[in-house]
């Protein structure tokens, strides 16, 4: 069935619509504090339209013979006699898929937020910022050169800062927003360095041109290596890879829908997207992919260990996100663009659903602490159903979505690097364990808290149910290899062959076994209590201490680097420079002036006879000059 292709003007509307929503809502923040409802309508309307357009766009891209569309846009920066920077759009299957994902998750989150943020005084501000974020993310996905990507990258970081620090009068939230911005900034330095390096060696920042240059070997391998490392540093900041992961758990201070949208599904995926976007460069650079894979696998295990011991439901989900992002990087590096992006798409849906479920649980019990929950499967059944579906999908049980994406990562990992495969398997085990620890602690057993839990409103439940559908089913997108074909050009095979046939590989059974044992262990510890969690804590107490202290990474950053190195070291030097050198220079100008004037003041004695003498001497001098010069 052939659908008419989307006209190019409407493609611009995909990211311009949410931007327009932001522009419309923001001037209204001050004048109309009371009537806040229309803001959400404007924002949701913009995102729905954008979603419709992006679905149409995806269909058009599917039909196009070369699956690519390049809109040259307009001349943005024209330095006379020098470089010219365009502002255009690059639409290929990668960006079309990402557009649909971002728009759908954003739409669900915004509908959910209508109920979640209902009584919040910052309602207007919230929807303005969410629209800004959506617009920036869409712009980042469709940017056609690295400079506009960087612009949107920064805008996304800004929106994240604004939304994490949404309740800015809480010091913890303000500090978390600052931390997020600063840590991602470190990554952005790498990104910027990569841009400069690529521009100076390749003469252009246009993405398609860079791809062809990298493939043909026009850029030297060492330059490519440094450039890709710089790009990956930026991705590490945004996607929370070790050691720049410390901001993600703190970012849970923001509202839960924000965590769902930004820190689970979309913004943190921007790093993965960047690596996928610039994949030909990574392929052409020696060892770049190895480094990406190693860091990704390490982060996966590292974060999963910390997720095992957290008592705050959102913190567990945050560490889970970091760990899954590590697996995405591993998949990208070992299996190609389609493996990582497939995992990203699936993860977006079920992680967003998990966060929205956590928000619903919070609405019911008034807390995020796992120790005060329990037995909620009876009290909030709808939330329970959605949450457990998402948890099962995340853990990776056939035939839900997470299984297929995890399959992709594990099979490519074992092909390339068995060590990394080992790390990935350990991660899978821990993922299943901590996820079901959460499920059993929250929904199983008896209610341990003091609140009166009640089910959430329909406005919150409907988006959750709608998200549950892709959380379960998005794995089947690749059942016939269609996903891979879209990104890779590989051959397709039958649908049921893909869904069922995967079970014929031994890899599938290994991963199912690992997942099953994880779930069983959680069941054993938290439902049947055959082994009490406290006893396990005691046995592994040193490991427990390491995990709960987050490997002392926060202390390392704050005390050592910020406290001593910067605060007492570098900043003291700057302060000395300012006080002694610069202030000294300014003050000495003043001292010289006042000293000179103090000396010159002595001429004005007030004695008129002195004035008379000076006058006479002056006359004599003038007369002499006149006489001498004739």
């Amino acid at each position, binding site marked *: 069935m052939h659908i008419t292709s989307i006209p190019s003007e409407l493609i611009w509307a995909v990211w311009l619509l949410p931007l327009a929503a932001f522009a419309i809502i923001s001037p209204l923040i001050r004048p109309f504090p009371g009537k806040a409802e229309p803001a959400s309508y404007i924002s949701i309307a913009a995102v729905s339209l954008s979603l419709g357009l992006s679905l149409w766009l995806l269909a058009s891209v599917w039909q196009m013979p070369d699956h690519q569309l390049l809109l040259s846009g307009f001349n943005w920066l024209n330095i006379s006699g020098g470089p010219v920077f365009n502002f255009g759009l690059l639409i290929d299957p990668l960006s079309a898929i990402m557009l649909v994902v971002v728009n759908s998750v954003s739409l669900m989150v915004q509908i959910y937020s209508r109920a979640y943020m209902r009584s919040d005084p910052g309602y207007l501000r919230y929807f303005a910022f969410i629209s800004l974020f959506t617009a920036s993310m869409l712009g980042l996905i469709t940017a056609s050169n690295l400079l506009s990507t960087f612009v949107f990258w920064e805008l996304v970081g800004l929106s994240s800062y604004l939304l994490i620090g949404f309740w800015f009068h809480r010091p913890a939230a303000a500090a978390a927003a600052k931390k997020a911005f600063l840590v991602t900034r470190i990554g952005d330095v790498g990104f910027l360095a990569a841009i400069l390096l690529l521009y100076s060696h390749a003469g252009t920042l246009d993405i398609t041109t860079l791809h062809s240059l990298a493939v043909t070997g026009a850029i030297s391998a060492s330059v490519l290596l440094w450039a890709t490392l710089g790009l990956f540093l930026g991705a590490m900041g945004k996607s929370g890879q070790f050691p720049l992961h410390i901001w993600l758990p703190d970012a849970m201070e923001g509202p839960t829908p924000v965590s769902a949208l930004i820190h689970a599904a979309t913004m943190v995926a921007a790093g993965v997207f960047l690596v996928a976007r610039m994949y030909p460069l990574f392929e052409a650079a020696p060892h770049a992919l190895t480094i990406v894979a190693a860091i990704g696998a390490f982060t996966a295990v590292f974060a999963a260990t910390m997720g095992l011991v957290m008592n705050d439901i959102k913190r567990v989900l945050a560490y889970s996100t970091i760990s899954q992002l590590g697996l995405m990087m591993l998949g990208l590096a070992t299996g190609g663009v389609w493996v990582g992006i497939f995992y990203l798409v699936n993860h977006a849906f079920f992680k967003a659903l998990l966060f929205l479920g956590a928000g619903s649980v919070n609405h019911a019990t008034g807390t995020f602490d796992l120790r005060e929950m329990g037995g909620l499967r009876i009290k909030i059944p709808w939330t329970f159903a959605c949450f457990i579906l998402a948890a099962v999908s995340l853990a990776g049980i056939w035939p839900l979505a997470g299984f297929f994406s995890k399959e992709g990562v594990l099979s490519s990992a074992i092909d390339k690097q068995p060590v990394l495969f080992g790390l990935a398997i350990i991660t899978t085990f821990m993922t299943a364990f901590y996820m079901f620890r959460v499920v059993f602690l929250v929904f199983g057993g008896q209610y341990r808290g003091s609140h009166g839990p009640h089910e959430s409103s329909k406005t919150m439940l409907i988006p959750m149910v709608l998200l549950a559908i892709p959380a379960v089913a998005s794995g089947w997108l690749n059942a016939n290899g269609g996903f891979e074909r879209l990104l890779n050009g590989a051959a397709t095979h039958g649908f049921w062959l893909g869904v069922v046939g995967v079970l014929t590989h031994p890899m599938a059974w290994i991963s199912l076994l690992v997942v099953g044992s994880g779930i069983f262990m959680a069941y054993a510890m938290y439902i049947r209590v055959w082994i009490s969690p406290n006893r396990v804590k005691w046995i592994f107490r040193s490991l427990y201490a390491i995990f709960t202290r987050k490997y002392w990474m926060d202390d390392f950053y704050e005390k050592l680097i910020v406290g001593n190195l910067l605060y007492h070291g570098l900043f003291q030097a700057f302060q000395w420079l300012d006080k002694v050198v610069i202030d000294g220079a300014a003050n000495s100008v003043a001292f010289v002036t006042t000293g000179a004037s103090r000396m010159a003041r002595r001429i*004005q*004695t*007030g*004695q*008129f006879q002195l004035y008379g003498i000076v006058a*006479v001497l002056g006359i004599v001098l003038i007369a002499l000059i006149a006489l001498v010069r004739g």
Partner: protein
Amino acid sequence: MSIGLTHYLIVSAVLFSIGLYGALSRKNAIVILMCVEIMLNAANLSLVAFSRFITPDQLSGQTLAIFSIVVAAAEVSVGLAIIIALYRQRKNIDVSNINLLKW
């Protein structure tokens, strides 16, 4: 040698310089006034000398000298009145105490 213009002019210059020195270096206000009178007289002398030697039939130098004397008289009277008022104020007429012309 016959007395010419230059002789009178030199006398006038010497008188003027003596008056100048006195006006600039004496502490007593009345003495300063006296030295100013000497200077004015020296000027009158050179005026009359010019009138006598350069335009003897037009007495323009002498008329100017007459007006100079008039002005000198007026100035002395006002100056002395000021000095007396000053003396009444401060009980001495030392000009080194008159030093407010500086801000």
